[in-house]
Structure formats: C-alpha cells, structure tokens
C-alpha cells in the first residue's frame, strides 16, 4: 500500500460506521421511553467530539471548555426568547457567536505551560459563570426560564417524551461528526497532530503553529456552542449549571473513558458515562461522585491505554 492509499484509508468510512449511525438514529424509535437520555447522550457526545479536537488531536489541556458550551446554551435560549423561536436559526446564531468567542479566547492559550493553559481556561469558564450569575438578562442563579421553542423545520413539535429532541440532537451530532472526521483526516488535521506530538519540530518543518492552534480552538468552540445550543433548545431552559466546573471535568473523564484522539472515543465515552452516571445515581443519589472519583483514580493507576484494551490487563506489560 503506498502512502496516498494509507492516508485515504483512514478517511474512508468503514463498514460498521453507517450501521452504528443507523442504529443510533433508530434508538429514539425503539427505546422511546428513554428518548430523554438518548438526547442527553447525543449532546454530551457532540461536546466530547469538540473537546477531542483540541485535547486529543492538538494536545491543548483545557478545563474550561464549558465556557463555550454555556455560551451556546445562553445564546440559543435568549435568541429563542427574544428574537425568533425557530430552532435551526437559533442553532446557527449560537454557533456563530460561540465561534467568535472562541476566536477571542484562542489568544489566551498560546503561551506558557500546561498549568498556565489549565488556569486560563478555568478562569474563562469561571468568568462566564459569574457573568451568567450576575447579569440581568440571563436570569441569574434561577436560570433563564420561559423559553418556548418553535417546531423543527416548521413541522415537528418538540414533544414531552423527547423523541423529536433526540432525533434533532442525533442529526446535528452526525453532521458535526462527519465534518470533524473530514477535518482531522485532512492535511490540516495531520498538521494538528504534528503540533501535538512535537511543537518544536512542527514549527521547524514550516507549520504555522500559532495559527493552527487558534483555528482549531475556534472551531472546537463553535462545536461546543452547538452542543450547548442543543441542550438549551431541547430542554427549553438555560441555567448557570452549564458553566459549572464539574461539567468540564466530567467531559474530560468521559473522553478519557472512550479514548482520546479518536472521534468515536467521545461518542462511546458519552454513552458509557451517561449510562454509568444514571445507574450510579439511581443507587446512591448523593454519593455517586465518590464512585466516579474512584473510577478515575483506578483508571489512571491501571493506565488509560490499557483500560480500553482488556486483553492487556493480564500478563504484565506488552
């Protein structure tokens, strides 16, 4: 196989992928009573894909990705409340605004060490949370209520069961997933991975590192904004919870469960994490964070590369 073919190979759709997506799109039908959690999983998966773009493919450690998620959520909710209730237009506006916000924030992550970046991203997230808490038009700590969404495409009403919502989120997830897949398998994506692996060498072979970081951070912000907008639109509600620190931390956890630097990692991580969270919080409503914490510690002790490959657990190091 020559180089061109091997590059094309990773871009090509494998046989199981359409099957996976068809199954995913069928779930709101088959598991109608679980449509709400399917909707949530789709949203979190989209959010995770967005984080994977910067963390897994570019190696930017961020603990404040919820800032863009929240930006999208509030934009979508405010737009629906004050301008027009059409979900798709709202989604578009939310994406544009959070992309712009991401472009501004990308200036903050250029310099310094991992710690600096960690702190700056946390700081941006907390500032956004303070703003949402204190500004008048965001509804403060009570959240933004009274958001009424119009029907999707003018035909499909959002029902209480959440089937429309689940389809809507799944479709948006699929669209962004396809776009992300094209992006990371393009030559642009290859330069991102070069930056992740060795920034100095990437610079030496002529990759404009700063520009690449800025672009991917901006794109990821837009995708996170889309996820936030979906949440606000399908729940008709936006609260400062969308900016919470634990949202960024959970997101990182689920991405690690699924495997970073792999687009399906975000999707599988979202499924596993949400189901696990649902299950644990039904057993111990108050203390489920303990088990999540224990899981994290064990995960790192065992090594996250090995956790998703059970056949390497026994027999020492490969």
């Amino acid at each position, binding site marked *: 196989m020559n180089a061109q073919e091997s590059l094309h190979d990773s871009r090509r759709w494998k046989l199981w992928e359409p099957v996976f997506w068809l199954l995913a799109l069928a779930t709101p039908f088959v598991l109608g009573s679980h449509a709400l959690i399917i909707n949530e999983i789709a949203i979190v998966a989209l959010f995770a894909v967005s984080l994977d773009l910067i*963390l897994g493919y570019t190696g930017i*450690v961020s*603990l404040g990705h919820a800032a863009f998620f929240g930006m999208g959520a509030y934009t979508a909710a405010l737009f629906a409340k004050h301008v027009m209730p059409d979900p798709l237009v709202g989604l578009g506006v939310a994406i544009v605004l959070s992309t712009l916000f991401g472009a501004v924030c990308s*200036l*903050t992550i250029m*310099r*310094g*060490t*991992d*710690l*600096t970046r*960690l*702190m*700056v991203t*946390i*700081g*941006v997230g*907390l*500032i956004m949370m*303070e*703003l949402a808490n*204190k500004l008048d038009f965001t509804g403060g700590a009570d959240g933004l209520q009274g958001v009424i969404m119009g029907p999707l495409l003018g035909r499909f009403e959002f029902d209480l069961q959440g089937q429309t919502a689940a389809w809507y989120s799944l479709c948006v997830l699929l669209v962004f997933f396809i776009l992300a897949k094209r992006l990371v398998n393009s030559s642009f994506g290859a330069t991102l991975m070069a930056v992740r692996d060795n920034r100095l060498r990437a610079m030496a072979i002529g990759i404009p590192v700063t520009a690449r970081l800025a672009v991917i951070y901006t794109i990821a912000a837009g995708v996170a904004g889309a996820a936030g907008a979906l949440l606000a639109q399908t729940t008709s509600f936006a609260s400062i919870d969308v900016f919470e*620190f*634990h949202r960024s*931390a959970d997101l*990182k*956890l689920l991405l*690690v469960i699924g495997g*970073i630097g792999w687009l399906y990692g975000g999707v599988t991580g979202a499924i596993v994490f949400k189901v696990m969270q649902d299950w644990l919080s039904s057993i111990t409503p*108050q*203390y*489920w*964070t*303990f088990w*999540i*914490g*224990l*899981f*994290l*510690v064990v*995960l*790192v*002790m065992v090594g*996250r590369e090995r956790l998703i490959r059970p056949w390497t657990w026994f027999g020492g190091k490969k």
Partner: protein
Amino acid sequence: MLTILFDGIAYGMLLFILAVGLAVTMGLMNFINLAHGAFAMGGGYITVVLMQRYDVPFLVCLPLAFLGMALLGAVLERTLYRPMYKKSHLDQVLFSIGLTFMAVAAMDYFMGSSQQIVQLPEWLKGRTELGDGSLMLGMGHYRLFIIAVCAALTIALQYILTRTRFGSRLRASVDDQRVAAGLGINVNVVFLATFAVGSGLAGLGGALGAEVMGLDPSFPLKNMVYFLIVVAVGGTSSITGPLLAALLLGIADVAGKYFIPNFGAFIVYFLMIVILIWRPQGLFVRKGGK
C-alpha cells in the same frame, strides 16, 4: 480602607499557607495536584471534630491538624502519588480530580453536607480599632492571629529553605532532579518529606481558615481554583513568589468583593488571566532553574 487592606492581607496569608505546599510540590515534581484542597479540608475537619466531640482546645488542634495531614500526605505519597510523577499532565489532572471527588463524597457521607462551625476561644474573638474616619483600621483579633501565625511560618519556611542543609537539597532537586540525584541526594526522601510538610501546611491552613472561608464538603472544589491561581501567578521556583501572589490575590479579592460586590470574584479571575497572558510562567521566575 485600611480595614480592607488588613483583611486582605490576612486572607492572603491564609491562602499562602494553604498553597505553599502545592507550589513546592509542583515545582519539585512537576505534578499538578488538584487534590491539594482535600488536605486542607481534612485539616479543617480534624479541628472541628476534635473541638466539638473531645473538647480539645483550639491551639492544640492546630498542630494536630498539621501532623494528621502530614502523616496522611506521607502515606499517600508513598502509595498513590509516586507512580504518577512520570505520567502525563492529563493523567495527573484526572487522577487528582478523582481523589478530590472521592474526598468530597466521603466527607459528605461521614460528616454531612452542612457547614461546620469552629468555636473560637474567647481571647480570639473581638476586634481592636485604631484611628478614625476613612483611615480607621479595624483588626479582628482572629485575623491578627492568622497573620502572626502565617508570618512566623513564612519566616521559618524561608529559613529552612535558604539556610539549612535540607533546604539546599530541596532547591537542588527542584532545579535539576537528575543532577541532584547524581550528587548523592536522596531525591525520593526529599520528595516524601516535602510532600508531607506541604500537606501538613495545607491541613493547618484549613484548620485556621475554617472560620474565615467556611468549611463544608465542597471546600476542595470551591477553593482549588484559588490555590492554583496562587501557584500559577506566583511561579513555583521560590516561596516569595507565591507569597506575593497570595497577598495580591487576597487583597484583590477582599477589595473587589467590598467595592464591587456584584463582580467580586470576576476581578480575581480577570486579573489572573491578564497576568498569565503577560507573564505565562508566573510573575516571579528565577533564571537558571529548569
């Protein structure tokens, strides 16, 4: 005016004691320990439990909080933390967040989620006022006590770090671990001792700060950001850096909350981002270190 400055200094000193262990371990082992706040919480709870259930006097509780957390820190360093030093920063962040989650949920389980109250002894309550008008300086006795204790600790730490043999070993290990090991310094023991003392100081800070900052199981999550700000802004190569950063942060926080109550915390975060964009390595970087 002066009262705000005074409260800010007291708060800053407290933050310094809480964060100095984090600064040293981060500089020494390049380890991002987000679970540092959990040690502070542990110290606070030791004090509360000892005082409420066993009637131990407050002044005896403080060293006990220090010792308890130092011991716990040493055990955890030996068992859990050591394998983490070589892992990537992402792993370290995940690991220590996991520990924090566990500590928060466990405290919630054993102690309940309500805010704990520390009963201060009589002689620490009350307030002295000097001067009048806009220059009036009102000093809460407890805050005065905090400043005194923290100042004494700072001087002691500075002395240990610059004048003793252990201090020079520690500085050598921070600057270059491999060369230090090559010169016959037992870097592992230096790590262990430093981690234990850092955790102990966090415990002491938690015990002292329980009255000022409030103590409930979400303490590590609420205050972690502040400790990290101190370390990120102050740099990890000295203890004067974190000290100045902590004082700056304390004063900015208290003043911000006083003058612009709506956006109090906002100012601190904004200040941090501006400083970190301006000086990504922190305000005070010693040249020559690694």
